[in-house]
């Protein structure tokens, strides 16, 4: 399969899910599928071709039934999905008809940032980067996954981000197509792995935790506070460079086109029997036994997902992007 499959000339621009290897993109995609199914709204994620559809089904099954994370794959960019919105049923009111929104779909690509990767068979640095910039140039919505856990150990988010954005800007702005020297994308900055103790406790320390509806549900960080948590997590990065991430984003994207989200693909642990969140027992990951004797966290045991997957803020950034891009397209259509 090639990335061109399923895309026809004249297709609307796509959404790119972009982040460092291991930042959780594949899981995010599968969680997105789960979240949309659970929501039972007009939005769906579908494969653009049979291979991509199978891959999505397989990933979703892994997460829900096998309770495992997807393997590190090198072929993500070969797949292509579509975020689709069914036409809303026409609602008849007293005053007559209200027009429902029309059917709409947009391509979704998953892009690894260049750099260290899990799969040995992964293609080399240069090709990855070129392909990535191509894909980003074709998209108008980006879900940028920022992995605070990786940032704490590797601290390399900035170096990945800056180079790519600079090249992308060089490519796209050279044509002076957009007038204002800013990239045309909508950008959803997603702090991932909110379910990890370190992330949760950082949010807790900042007083950013909110419990929607009632305390039985998992905590969340409001979108308005997400940027503050993002900034704090960047400040904790050992490299010190993470502090440059936010200014870099602001340099390249219109501030009103950037929105922050605090997300978790798997969500916090919820005891299936009690059916409610317990702040004393939040981790939804558990290491598996290994034969190597006593070891501690971080010693590389295989990880399983402990309880049911309950995605937090996975659907929201996609729908935000979808709505913005749909609106823009409709505006264009109406105007032209």
């Amino acid at each position, binding site marked *: 399969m090639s990335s061109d499959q399923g895309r026809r000339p004249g297709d609307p621009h796509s959404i790119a899910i972009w982040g460092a290897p291991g930042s959780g993109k594949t899981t995010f995609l599968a969680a997105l599928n789960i979240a949309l199914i659970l929501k039972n709204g007009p939005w769906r994620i579908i494969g653009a071709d049979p291979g991509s559809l199978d891959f999505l089904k397989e990933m979703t099954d892994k997460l829900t039934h096998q309770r495992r994370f997807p393997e590190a794959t090198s072929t993500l960019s070969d797949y292509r999905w579509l975020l689709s919105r069914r036409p809303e049923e026409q609602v008849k009111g007293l005053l007559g008809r209200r027009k429902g929104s029309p059917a709409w779909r947009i391509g979704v690509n998953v892009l690894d940032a260049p750099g260290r990767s899990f799969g040995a068979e992964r293609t080399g640095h240069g090709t990855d980067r070129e392909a990535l910039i191509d894909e980003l140039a074709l998209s108008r919505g980006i879900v940028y996954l920022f992995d605070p856990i990786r940032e704490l150990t590797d601290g390399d988010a900035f170096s990945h981000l800056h180079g790519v954005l600079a090249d992308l800007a060089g490519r796209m702005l050279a044509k002076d197509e957009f007038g204002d020297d800013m990239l045309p994308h909508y950008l959803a900055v997603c702090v991932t792995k909110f379910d990890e103790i370190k992330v949760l406790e950082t949010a807790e320390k900042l007083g950013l935790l909110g419990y929607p509806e009632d305390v039985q549900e998992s905590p969340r960080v409001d979108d308005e506070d997400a940027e503050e948590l993002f900034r704090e997590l960047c400040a904790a990065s050992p490299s010190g460079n993470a502090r440059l991430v936010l200014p870099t984003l602001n340099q390249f994207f219109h501030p009103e086109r950037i929105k922050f989200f605090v997300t978790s693909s798997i969500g916090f642990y919820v005891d299936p029997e009690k059916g409610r969140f317990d702040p004393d027992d939040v981790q939804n990951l*558990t290491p598996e036994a290994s034969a190597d004797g006593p070891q501690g966290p971080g010693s590389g045991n295989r990880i399983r997902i*402990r309880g049911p997957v309950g995605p937090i803020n996975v659907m929201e950034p996609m729908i935000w992007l979808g709505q913005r891009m749909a609106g823009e397209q409709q505006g264009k259509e109406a105007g032209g």
Partner: protein
Amino acid sequence: MTESGEDLLRRALTEAIAELAGSRRLVVVEVAAEGVTAFDLHRDEAGTSRGRERPMTRWAGQTAEGGGDGATPSPFEEGSEGATPAEGGRDGATAFPAEEAAVRATWLPVDARVVLVRSAPDGGPVGRAMEALRAARPDALALNGGGVPVAVLLREIVAAEPLRRPYDLVVLRRHPVTGRLRLACQPLFAMETRRGALSEVTVQCEPSDERGTVFAVVAWQDRRPVLVSVHAVKLPPGRYEVTAMLERPGRVRFSGLPSLTREDRSWTELVSSVPARLGPPSGPAHLICAVETTGPEVQLGERLRRVSQLVTELAGELSGLLQVSLVTYGAHSYDPRIPERPVDVVDWEVSPDDAQESLKILEESRAGRATGHGAAEPGYPYAAQVEDMLAEVAGRLGPPGGRRRTVLLTVGARPPHPPRRHASEILPCPRRVDWERQVRDLQRHPGLVFGAICDQPPERAHPAWARLGENASAHLDTLDPQGFCADLGVTAPGVQRVPFPLMAMP
């Protein structure tokens, strides 16, 4: 004007002596027919009045041999520990004219309180000396002596004084389980006790060195013990009912023991010769062995063998008095497909032989389970149910109170699960059991000691292991069973010499 009457003199001197405190001094000057004698008195650290009789200054023309008081012994030299012997001696006394003698006698610290006693008819050198002394110290109290010489009177007054500080006997107390020895005090006489009072103590004397068991009496000065007397006697080991008699302040006599001799080893020397612990008296003991069943098969086999060694060692030392319990614990399961295996109480309070049998069965069944060199125990890999094991043991032991010596021997490697989410990222115990609370609860058992055999070197082991090995700890590969049991305080490390009597157990 002088006052008169022996009772009056006695009362005045008693009062003056009672007022002695701190660095205050009292000087009593006796002006007699033969010459002048001065007595210096002060109170020592232990609250005992101490004194010194200065050589008599004779009137001109008289000689030492002519003195009528030559036969009167000094009240402060005879049997009076800590008293400075009189400077010079009676034999060195020289004769001087009365006035000069008086002046020499008034050579006194200015801050000393002075009492002048005239014990001979006024006139001649006596009168002149009295006058000169009163002129020199107008603040001095002047009294007339009676028939009793001042030296005798002072001795009687000092001996009849009540105790200014409580007196205790220095003893050793032994921890019922660890055998650890601690210096302690057994009250003998309360404050205000007067001579003749009796006090009884029962002590246990252990084998001592050739100089004997030391009976030391201390007085308490603001929370600080001050030695009153130290005596020693060589005794056969055993229980002794000792009666202490307050002979006078500063002197306690013991009966019920062969006669004691004064001890001249220094206090520091005595104290440093006390062994850290003393082998246990015979009595029942309970060894609880908690074995972690996770990890590779070889390791588990090694743990079980170590436990077996210790059971053998203790059973040999405590013949017939040892009961053994055997508890195994593994990993919690956070995977619904892997059933949770709770803590297993294999044996509770069984004979060492039965426990050995269970250990053998455990080892065999485990070996059967093993499929290779490193069969992994299913379940959570980074911790074990230490906290549940502690809770199970605490529950079975019941509320603290029993005197029975109990050893909790934990053998394993992994940390406990925290009671709630923790920065270590170790998942919390499903029952939210708090290992620290459990350890604290167990520590309340007076007879309980903790021993641990950990597969991990101490610097890598979780802090819980330091608590579990509070009294004795060893690495799995380098355990010395004898030393380990001695550290636990349940077996004796050879013959020991104990310098002080032990408080006898009721």
